[in-house]
């Protein structure tokens, strides 16, 4: 069990998402940066579907009630285990009673917006409709269907694998798989159904101009500000399914990228979709950040997926080698 001693707003239990419940109107929820969650699970010897804690706002402080292995991945942050600094993206051993504190890192190089705590065995909240992910609307899954708060006690599952050697780290994907245009983080986009319905000048601006992540951005959606996107004529659509990454353009002409807690259906026109393989990059763009969009096609989007799979496979191989080597 772990006990939360301090907890900023909007920390939630998340796994890779609730896949397969759209037919009941239930969205995916799940980690915004699924790659960071997957990396953290690898570092502590967890299966892919184990749940961790998504931390959006420091401070965050917990006490391990049992000795275990853990890792904090995702955004760069300042980590102290019993007052001793440790590194993110690195497996570490905690004794029973140890206190882990996560704070913002005061450095211009600090990267990211969301951190993930993975603990050996996973956060063992009940599986609801196939997932442990917290879906706030409808209060489904996670810890009592809500954000975490100080005083909460979270059960841990039993680990399948002995965790890899403590002190083993991964090169974060932001370093291993960089993507930028004119020095700004970039996201690849597949044009969607209404792309051709926008004025040529709007389409050119969509690809050519930077977009700012506004303060009205959260797990539901990222509202961007930039040039106004104008359709050739007003568009009225029937309600239809959408997915995380879908870029809707409401009547004001400022796009909203739907994220993990978005409604699973909508009616606004869609200019494109941030590809699945780049959603983690957007998830880690803080409020106020500027980003760029890059047009891609089906083959390009699949190649980007393959690159992520490649990074995960290499990490998995390296960690299983170290595990085998250390227990031999």
């Amino acid at each position, binding site marked *: 069990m772990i006990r939360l001693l301090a907890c900023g707003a909007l920390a939630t239990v998340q796994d890779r998402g609730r*896949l*397969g*419940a*759209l*037919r*009941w*109107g*239930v*969205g995916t929820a799940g980690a915004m940066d699924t790659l960071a969650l997957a990396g953290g699970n690898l570092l502590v010897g967890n299966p892919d579907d184990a749940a961790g804690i998504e931390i959006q706002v420091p401070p965050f402080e917990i006490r391990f009630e049992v000795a275990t292995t853990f890792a904090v991945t995702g955004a760069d942050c300042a980590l102290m285990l019993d007052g001793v600094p440790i590194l993110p993206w690195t497996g570490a051993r905690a004794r029973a009673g140890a206190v882990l504190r996560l704070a913002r890192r005061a450095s211009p190089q600090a990267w990211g917006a969301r951190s993930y705590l993975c603990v050996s065995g996973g956060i063992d909240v009940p599986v*609801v*409709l196939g997932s442990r992910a917290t*879906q706030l*609307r*409808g*209060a*489904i*899954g996670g810890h009592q269907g809500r954000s975490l708060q100080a005083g909460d006690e979270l059960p841990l599952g039993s680990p399948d694998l002995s965790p890899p050697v403590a002190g083993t780290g991964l090169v974060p994907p932001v370093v291993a798989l960089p993507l930028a245009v004119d020095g700004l983080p970039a996201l690849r986009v*597949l*044009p*969607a*159904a209404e*792309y*051709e319905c926008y004025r040529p000048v709007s389409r050119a601006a969509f690809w050519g101009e930077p977009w700012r992540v506004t303060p009205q951005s959260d797990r539901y959606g990222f509202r961007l500000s930039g040039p106004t996107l104008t359709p050739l004529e007003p568009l009225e659509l*029937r*309600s*239809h*399914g*959408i*997915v*995380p*990454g*879908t870029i809707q353009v409401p009547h004001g002409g400022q796009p909203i990228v739907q994220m993990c807690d978005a*409604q*699973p*259906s*909508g009616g606004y026109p*869609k200019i494109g*979709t*941030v*590809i*699945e*393989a780049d959603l983690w990059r957007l998830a880690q763009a803080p409020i106020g950040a500027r980003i760029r969009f890059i047009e891609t*096609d*089906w*083959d390009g*989007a*699949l190649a980007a*997926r393959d690159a992520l799979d490649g990074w995960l496979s290499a990490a998995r191989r390296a960690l299983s080698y170290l595990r085998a080597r250390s227990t031999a």
Partner: protein
Amino acid sequence: MNRPIPLPPHAEAPDLAPCISLLGTTALLFEAPGETCLETQARIWSLAREADTWPEVREAVPGVNNLLVTWREPPRRLEAITGRLAAAWKAAPPLALAGRTVELPVVYGGEGGPHMADVVAHTGLSPDEIAEIHAAPLYPVYALGSHPGYCYLGGMDPRIATPRRKVPVLRIPGGAVSIGGAQTGVSASPGPSGWNTIGSTDMIFFDAARTPPALLQPGDSLRFRIAGVVR
């Protein structure tokens, strides 16, 4: 590969051809041609049932005269599956779902219907007339979406159609009965909405512990009963 994905040449004439587009590598959107109607929806249900059996498909989820198809693993070649969808659509008979009818008592107006006055102002009808017109039809459930347990309904009388609110309301309660444009629906849980809330009901539409978790499914029908009109 962009925008509406071009369909193979054997597809129907352009005005009768469905539109297939990408939602990244997560899903495809299949949109039926023509005016929104129940017969087309019944063919969408049929297509959903068919596509749900394909191994690469995680879920085939009806929308309003359209279908979302999500992947277990995105196919390497898109043309094969878009061609298959188009062919399956051509062959799809309307699927008559033997749905249940659920009756929903609604208190119209008052505290539970804070925007009744806006619908009155827009339509020129009285709250009693609005309640009567709203409670008259049997509403078919076209699809589920928006939030857990929420139903997209067909069949509202256009006389009470009222535009969505200019400024969405940050939180309307679960059970809120509302009108947005030519559509009506009932919120299954509290949340933001741009629709006009004209009444309220106590029905529980979603319970994750129940199997299935949603009270209603496509093909079911909803009838509103006037439990009261607060003037």
